[in-house]
């Protein structure tokens, strides 16, 4: 990580995980799952100037597993996959529009939600929740990616 130090990443993910734990109960009433921690990690990897190492993704994943009380390895495996995917397509993303990138991250979050629900919420696995979450996350990311809401990019560049 060239742009954000490891300690900062740990701190950001801790705060985002806390916010996610506060927001999740309200969103779940509308069948919406918003994986803020996963999206934050994806954004950090996406905005990085260099490739993120697998060890880093693995350790961050284990860390998020511990602080979010998820099964150990769940976030680690998904973070490793995501970092590998972003690293692989980092140059290809330059050809994509923001809309396409937003759809990519929404699809990633959809995969994350589905995969997580397979392990921790298999009894209540809901395709409706996946569909609504996908639409919601797509709209949210598109709104955030619009230039006047592009403060996230400015923050990550500092």
């Amino acid at each position: 990580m060239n742009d954000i130090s490891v300690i900062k990443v740990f701190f950001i993910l801790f705060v985002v995980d806390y916010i996610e734990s506060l927001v999740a109960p309200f969103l779940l009433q509308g069948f919406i799952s918003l994986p803020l921690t996963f999206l934050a990690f994806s954004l950090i990897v996406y905005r990085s100037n260099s490739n993120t190492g697998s060890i880093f993704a693995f350790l961050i994943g284990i860390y998020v597993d511990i602080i979010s009380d998820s099964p150990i390895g769940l976030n680690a495996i998904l973070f490793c996959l995501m970092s590998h995917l972003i690293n692989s397509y980092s140059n290809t993303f330059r050809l994509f529009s923001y809309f396409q990138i937003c759809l990519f991250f929404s699809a990633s979050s959809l995969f994350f939600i589905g995969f997580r629900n397979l392990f921790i919420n298999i009894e209540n696995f809901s395709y409706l929740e996946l569909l609504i979450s996908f639409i919601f996350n797509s709209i949210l990311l598109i709104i955030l990616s619009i230039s006047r809401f592009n403060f996230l990019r400015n923050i990550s560049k500092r």
Partner: protein
Amino acid sequence: MSRVAPTRGSKTLSFLFISLSALLLYLDTTYKSFESIKNIYKSFAISTSYILKKSTIDPISYIYELSIDKSYLLKENKELKLALDKSHLSNFIISKDSNFFANDKLIENFLTKNDISNIFYLSKIKSFDTQLYFCCSQHRVFIEIFNKPNMSLVGSAVINSSGILGQIIHDAGVQEVLLLTDKSHVLPVESENHFCNAKGNGDPGIIYCTYSTLLWPEEIKQGQSFFSSGMGGVYPRGLLIGHVGEIIKIDDSMIRFEIELISDPLQDNVLGVLEN
């Protein structure tokens, strides 16, 4: 700045860590192998939040609660004082009620001792301005008669366990008693062959007699007892009124002396009203 595409080595490393993560996930979901690590983190998080709360929020909330407590204590203090006043009042009433029968017996004993067979009604002092009693010449007591008969009791003598106090001058719901020491009161008294109209002068516990030595040549002595003469029909005859105190010679023929009353209106709260 473009990013380098993953090399074969980094791909292998990614696969390795994905496999390792999968293994950990399997171990955790199947055998709960990492529960202790999670518990350590939870206890650490709880302890940290507790310490942070203790060192930041608690002092602020303590100051706030202290201010709330102060106002609460003031309010509670007022309530307790009110309750204490009520308690004092109820205890006063209870203590007076318990004395009621004692006063009843005392008055009865007084009447028996003085061989008086008049019917009497028990009454209770409603109002007595003691400040007026000690400073001024108007000595009045307002009483309330228990089981009052359907007749006017104006002119009836009022007694307590120590003796005659005065007579009722108004009877309208609450009875007004004119005390012996009131300036407008006159009490016919006698001692052996001596008769006198003793007048109140506004002095507590003292009434005065004035007589002419030309009409009453016998000498008056200090400590001599005077009794009610029964003249006028208000007070029964033969009740001890008091003893002679100071004797003053006004001129060659006129003598004025004090009679120190044996009755004290401040002694009892329960009085007896003798039916005429």
